[in-house]
């Protein structure tokens, strides 16, 4: 099990090792100690490795992850798991702004709270936040699911495309073109699956409300100008 102590070893060596596993390599469980808020920790992973990060990280941890399983035993700075393609990222603590931004696949689990713009421009990623999320979350979300066990801040789902949002607590306000929608059996089923994958056992899908796009801004109309 390779261990990288970022107080001793440059970041470059960690990411380089993660990118250069020979095919058939079986020593794929990495541990990172003393991350001390480093940026770009474990970015660009393109194979099914596991990375346990012992401590908090700075910007863009697990950026563009494609198949890895990264767990941060601490909190994450802005843009954690940005543009994830596949795999799993778990943040045991809180996440800063833009968590899961533009993610195209995979699962991001945030066990604490997430700040503003969680899931901004999401394109297929599934995000489950055990706590609450900040303002402008899922802004321009294109596809994927955002599940929030706590509350959502202002302007949830502003200018939303086809991303599906589920919030268990209160929503401070909905953004332009975001509306509450009926929870159908297929949604409850999907939600149950996401909760299970995120390790949530004590919450029922029926406790959530569903939000999505009203699709009124899809084609320009001058009389909607005040909505922008």
């Amino acid at each position, binding site marked *: 099990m390779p261990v990288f102590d970022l107080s001793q070893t440059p*970041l*470059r060596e960690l*990411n*380089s090792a993660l*990118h250069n596993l020979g095919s058939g390599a079986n020593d794929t469980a990495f541990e990172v100690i003393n991350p001390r808020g480093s*940026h*770009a920790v474990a*970015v*660009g992973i*393109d194979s099914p490795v596991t990375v346990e990060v012992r401590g908090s990280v*700075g*910007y*863009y941890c697990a*950026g*563009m992850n*494609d198949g890895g399983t990264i767990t941060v035993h601490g909190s994450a700075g*802005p*843009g954690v798991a*940005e*543009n994830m*393609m596949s795999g799993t990222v778990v943040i045991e603590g809180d996440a800063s*702004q*833009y968590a899961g*931004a*533009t993610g*195209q696949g995979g699962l991001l689990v945030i066990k604490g709270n997430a700040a503003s*713009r969680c899931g*901004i*421009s999401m*394109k*297929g990623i599934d995000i489950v936040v055990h706590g609450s999320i900040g303002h402008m979350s899922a*802004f*321009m979300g*294109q*596809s994927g699911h955002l599940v929030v066990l706590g509350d959502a801040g202002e302007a949830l789902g502003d200018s939303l*495309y*086809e991303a599906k949002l589920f919030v268990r607590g209160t929503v401070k306000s909905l953004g332009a073109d975001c509306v509450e929608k009926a929870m159908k059996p297929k949604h409850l089923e999907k939600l149950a699956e996401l909760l299970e994958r995120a390790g949530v056992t004590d919450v029922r899908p029926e406790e959530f409300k569903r939000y999505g796009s009203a699709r009124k801004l*899809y*084609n*320009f109309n*001058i*009389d909607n100008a005040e909505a922008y």
Partner: protein
Amino acid sequence: MQKPIEAKGQQMSYHNPTTPPRKSATFDDYTLAEIRRAAATGIYDIRGGGTKRKVPHFDDLLFLGASISRYPLEGYREKCDTSVVLGTRFAKKPIELKIPITIAGMSFGALSGNAKEALGRGATLAGTSTTTGDGGMTNEERGHSEKLVYQYLPSRYGMNPKDLRRADAIEVVVGQGAKPGGGGMLLGQKISDRVAQMRNLPKGIDQRSACRHPDWTGPDDLEIKILELREITDWEKPIYVKVGGARPYYDTALAVKAGADVVVLDGMQGGTAATQDVFIENVGMPTLACIRPAVQALQDLGMHRKVQLIVSGGIRSGADVAKALALGADVVSIGTAALVAIGDNDPHWEEEYQKLGSTAGAYDDWHEGKDPAGITTQDPELAKRLDPVLAGRRLANYLKVMTLEAQTIARACGKNKLHNLEPEDLCALTMEAAAMAQVPLAGTSWYPGKGGF
């Protein structure tokens, strides 16, 4: 019949002789038509291309040539080097171009697949690079482009680490000259099945991309974003930062500070696939006005020629290339001119341009996807009109002619390398150009801003 008006002592009349009708300079025909158009449609005008207004440009500069004080080089016989290396600052794999002219970012979506292929083929034949656009990388353009720059845009449509790794350079797009401060736009007519799939959008919607990046704001964040991109690609790829011509001194300095290998600076003549006309015509600075402040920033930081500067926006000829390089650019980039070379706005299609209410040379409704030349369209029937092999050859010819023209001028100025051209070799025809380019007004030793008037 008007009744005569009595005046003291003599008769006056309002029965005037006919005078020529006089139109207002303020409310000219174009302005009036725009008011009527807005009133009738309830939407601002959207179009492609760059600014159409007249702005000070390279035409307002001339080369001095050699004489007694410096001697010229023989055309065709004495060497005049045109190559340039981009990404020498940090990238493990800088890219070398045979000519200092590249193809600017234009998306598959805005352009047809055949048009993108033609650009790739032409650039490759001429020994230079081409660039993706807002919509991701297609296999076709990767395949046909020996050197491909992958744009990293606010929308992140189709962004993925595999394409980052198979790119030859990465261009972080902060803005573009046609619309500094604006996001991309692709209207429903052009969101075909494939475009929709690549961008993960519902088919047929009006796509308006974000104007800011979703996960960073400001130079300090940009520095960390560049670090992340370098780490993902193992520090191999040159990283460009592209800005629209707004505050070139500070934007260049901040891009350098954030760790860019290359700064791409696009003036307001630079084109767009589709943007509000009001934006194209009223936001941003002319290319000519952008170069010297950007070069100054690089010089102040001791980074001129270490961080390369690519200038774009209204480059049309080898003379423009030579002038941009003389002012301190390392490379120029062309978009509109490349499209024209492969057949955009060609008089061959005049009849069809007329049917669209336009004329060859003025057609700019690229967002409608009805381009008779088959370039700015997703209509498969129209797209078929463009033969990518032939069009690629035309582009290669054009690039080579521009290079030869630039060499011709450089040799006349006594330079054995295009990059040895310098402001010293230039004079200006107008006060405006003298001020913007900081080269003397022809026949004087003075330009506005310089003391001793």
